[in-house]
């Protein structure tokens, strides 16, 4: 008779808290909760915009609340975290070959950061036109 008795270890529910790499992954995924909130604030802004000037100004005023400022600061940090992780993984989804050589990962990441800087400055300029 076989003495085999394979032992199966249960995955703990908090597996993502036991390893820094997994925790960072969960923060990456969790950033989407605050980004959802930000997008909801924007969608609300569009709603207020459709209701006329007073309503829209009310929305702008609400954003001056210290609580709103802190919340936006937090959202900015997590959005930037999303950006950093997105850019660092981007080369893995790119399959560009130039003269028989795969495009270097560093070039792809640098190109992303370059475009990010250009877009950020462009947006800041266009809003103050």
């Amino acid at each position, binding site marked *: 008779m076989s*003495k*085999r*008795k*394979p*032992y*199966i*270890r249960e*995955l703990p529910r908090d*597996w*993502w808290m*036991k*390893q820094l*790499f*997994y925790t960072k*992954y969960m923060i990456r*995924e969790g950033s989407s909760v605050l980004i959802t909130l930000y997008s909801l604030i924007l969608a609300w802004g569009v709603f207020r915009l459709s209701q006329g000037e007073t309503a829209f100004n009310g929305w702008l005023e609400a954003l001056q609340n210290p609580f709103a400022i802190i919340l936006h600061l937090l959202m900015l940090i997590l959005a930037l975290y999303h950006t950093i992780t997105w850019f660092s*993984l981007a*080369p*893995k*989804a790119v*399959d560009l*070959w130039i003269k*028989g*050589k*795969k495009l270097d990962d560093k070039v792809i990441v640098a190109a992303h950061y370059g475009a990010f800087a250009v877009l950020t400055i462009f947006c800041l300029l266009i809003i103050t036109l």
Partner: protein
Amino acid sequence: MSELTIEIDVLRYRPEMDNEPFTQTFEVPYTAEMSILEALQYIKDHLDSTVSFRWSCRMAICGSCGLMVNSVPKLGCKAFLRDYYPQKISLEPLANFPIERDLVVVMDDFIKKLEEIKPYIIPEKEKCLSEGTYQQTPEQMAKFKQFSMCINCGLCYAACPQYALDNKFTGPAALALLARYNRDSRDNGEAERMKIVNQEEGVWGCTFVGYCSVVCPKDVDPAAAIQLLKVESSKDYLIGMFKPD
């Protein structure tokens, strides 16, 4: 020098007498050039001959000695005591696999998945030997070479939370191997393999945690293989919408 020692915790499990694993601590002489595998061999030769673990080549080629070193999947032969000394080291069998005995795991599911992805060249039509070999340029080979370096050690499965959460997921190494054959210019089996890729248990079980590529001892980068296959699967989906098979 020979006075230095290091403590090593080994997770033991003896199916004929234990109901669950337990930790046994050993004190092993420390030298800077000693690998984890050598430390285990020291334990087996000098301290407790009943400790079981797999090993063969001692040089990161055979892929037998995978285990968890301080909860990180590593090859025993490619991890060294000096990187942990003087802290205690904890050794456990590879995560996400059932334990057969001590540090030996049951890899049947992993092997089954490797076989399922049709890991062989499916040529357009069989050539007679007299017609010569299937030829390939270095550039064509470069397209898949990285994904062909896998030694089937299973570290990426131990690193993959999606496989841990649902072991129906085809998993990193098998998908990287699949990409290796799909990207081979001599192969014509892409249509057959895309059926595996397109499933929920295919590439879509992956959420791009990316740890598989970090722990891979041969820099195969299964996470990249899976992302590229996701792109292929999406193209295949679009084609499938207009041209249902």
